[in-house]
């Protein structure tokens, strides 16, 4: 630590070069932070709260409905502690482009999602109101909705009996928050009563698109899923029960292999960065050959000269990388908001910081290794005489 000012001085010996290199490093880590946040956002949902939840939908197709009566039979399966139901609604607000992720759910649905926090009085108000809807804080903010508002939503799928067309009216009775940053995606939801949906729906009745099942012991989730599927085996509404993680993972994998794309881009970026900073460090040490020789002459050991050069390159990477990630954490919430929930990013997660810092240290060491080794092997007499 006591050599920090010396390393710092060496780093900024050539201001232009160091600043230019820093900008390249910042750009690389900016990209890393952004891409990794997006990757994590799309693989989110494996929170602890999600453990032990099963999604049961029709084996034929996700859009195919299941009978509402099936819920009671699933509830009798040993190991199941609660069953809630949910339906697609396909809501849009004012303009077909403003999609609102909206589900018609049974009243106990939010009991199964402890990551959703709704004040008790708003919950009671929701249960009292037939046309009541509860909305996530992010969604409410986007359209300026407040508790007590009456809002019209168009369903892209279901006509309403009351209005004779696709417009459904809801009373907002509550605004819920996500328990942690990680679940912030849930703040884009609008939930309303399945009863209202079923009574007012011009097509079909008494059907549910999927059940959410809470199991007592997540370790036995697979066995419970098999038992649930056995209930409806060989009927005209066979089900497919799977853990929530598996359900979401299959979706993301079908969308696009985001992990692979991110890894390939970052591979190209970091390979270039390695060359670039490696080149800078080589130049820096070559220029300072005589200075290093002087250091050795006045008594610095070969090892400490080596460590100082290594520390210089690690410092360079850390400086650029941390600035890059800091910029990401400033702009990411903006991106999340601008994409209207399409890209569910809300901040730089702890794991991105950890991976990022590990990368900075690793690249710093790799890049500094050869120059540091050269500095260590420097022969004082040769170096001073300029040979």
């Amino acid at each position, binding site marked *: 630590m006591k050599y920090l000012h010396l390393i710092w001085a060496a780093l900024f010996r050539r201001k232009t070069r160091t600043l230019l290199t820093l900008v390249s490093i910042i750009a690389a880590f900016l990209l890393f932070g952004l891409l990794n946040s997006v990757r994590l956002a799309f693989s989110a949902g494996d929170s602890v709260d999600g453990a032990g939840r099963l999604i049961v939908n029709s084996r034929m197709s996700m859009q195919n409905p299941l009978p509402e009566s099936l819920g009671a039979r699933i509830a009798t399966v040993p190991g199941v502690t609660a069953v809630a139901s949910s339906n697609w609604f396909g809501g849009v607000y004012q303009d077909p482009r403003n999609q609102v992720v909206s589900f018609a759910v049974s009243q106990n649905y939010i009991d199964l999602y402890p990551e959703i926090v709704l004040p008790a009085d708003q919950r009671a108000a929701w249960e009292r109101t037939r046309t009541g809807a509860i909305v996530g804080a992010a969604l409410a903010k986007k359209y300026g909705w407040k508790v007590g508002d009456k809002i019209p939503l168009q369903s892209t799928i279901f006509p309403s009996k009351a209005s004779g067309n696709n417009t459904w009216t809801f009373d907002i009775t509550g605004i819920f928050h996500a328990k942690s940053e990680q679940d912030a995606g849930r703040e884009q939801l609008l939930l309303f009563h399945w009863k209202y949906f079923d009574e007012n729906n011009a097509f079909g009745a008494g059907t549910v698109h999927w059940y959410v099942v809470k199991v007592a012991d997540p370790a036995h989730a697979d066995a419970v899923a098999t038992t649930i599927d056995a209930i409806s085996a060989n009927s005209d509404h066979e089900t497919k029960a799977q853990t929530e993680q598996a359900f979401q993972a299959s979706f993301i994998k079908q969308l696009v292999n985001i992990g692979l794309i991110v890894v390939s881009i970052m591979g190209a970026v970091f390979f*270039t960065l390695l060359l670039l900073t490696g080149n800078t460090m080589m130049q820096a040490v070559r220029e300072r050959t005589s200075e290093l020789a002087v250091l050795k002459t006045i008594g610095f050991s070969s090892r400490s000269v080596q460590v100082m050069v290594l520390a210089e390159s690690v410092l360079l990477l850390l400086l650029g990388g941390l600035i890059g990630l800091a910029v990401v954490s400033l702009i990411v919430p903006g991106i999340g908001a601008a994409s209207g929930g399409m890209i569910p990013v809300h901040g730089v997660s702890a794991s991105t910081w950890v991976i990022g810092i590990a990368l900075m240290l690793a690249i710093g060491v790799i890049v500094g290794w050869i120059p540091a080794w050269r500095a260590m092997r420097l022969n004082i007499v040769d170096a001073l005489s300029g040979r």
Partner: protein
Amino acid sequence: MKKFLFNLGLVLLVILALLVWIRLPWIGVVALALLFALWLALSRSGRQAASVTVVGVSTIRQRAGSSSVIVIGIAGVVAVLVALLAMGEGLTATLASGGRSDTAIVLRGGAAAESASVLLRDDVLAVEQAPGVARDAAGKPAMSAELVVAASLKQKGSNEDANAQLRGVDAEAWALRPDLKIVQGRKFKPGLRELVVGQGAARQFAGLAVGDEVKLGTESWTVVGVFASGDAYDSELWADRQSVASAYRRGNSAESVLVKLTGTAAFDGFKAALMSDPKLKVETSTTADYFARQSAGLARTIRVVGLTVGVIMAIGAIFGALNCMFAAVASRAREIATLRAIGFRGVPVVVSVMLETMLLALAGGVLGALIVWLVFNGYTTSTLNGLTQVVFDFKVSPALMWSGLKWALAIGFIGGLFPAVRAARLPVTTALREL
């Protein structure tokens, strides 16, 4: 103050040059290159520039490390940019090419896609009576009511389920899509549980070879043929509408109706007739419009992502190039000062440093574009469109590779300009005294 104004002017010049460069068509670039070559060969300062450049280029080998940073850095930018844009282009080509301007699709009012639409039997009959519908000699309308469901199938090479689009069609469906050809086996027979699969779906999902039995819904189906169409239909499974409706309990409803019109001009009358019918709540557009709309959102997202990543990488590469060229200029400071002392003017010096950087950038651009073309051209992948999978190929078109090269040259231009100006403005006396 004077220095500040000079630098400000330089930055403005760069911005102006970039704006022109982005809009410049290839013929303009060729003309520019020709003019430049003429200047090099014919004018006095041009010949000076050429000779200084030859000296600079011949020393590149001694600076292999820093030169390769420029080449590889720019190759990386171009490769990533072109690959992402090729993905977008491939997806657009697949989704948008299925449409025709003399065929109309009818959906329920307000529905943006087939999966969000329901048409009842009365609606279908009303569409049949609308003016402008083409009819055969017997007076039978050329239309097909269609039903789409997302069917769960195992993906090839993994044990995981993915959603394939199963389309139930009427007998006329084949005539409505003249580009669609059976490449193996035969068409399905109405009333039987037989499937014809798109070539993309056959590649993507397991157990879809001709002759295979596959379980969809509660029933077992036989695959009897494979078709090719080169658009989004390639990712679908087709069967008789009545069979699909009974297997998936859809009754008499359909999701969309595809209609062949008597001509392109007939669409307006057809649409007006449907709109003015008070009993009907439907929307119609030509299939050309419909497919273009389907792909617009997804393609735009990919484009925005590609350009964002490209711009950030380009900024990194510009600074890398600046760094390397500043170092190159610094190491040749004495040589450049000598040239100027014996009478070379500033312009040849600036041009030679710029030219050197742009040559390196060009090499990087060609390398990057070539790698992407070799690895990704025709690379097949799939994504979700709505609820179901669509299979598409990356399309590394010459236009994309050309725009990649333009990016490379732009990066080289910015990366070379500032070091070049520094070299030309260095006071001769101080430069000679250095080192």
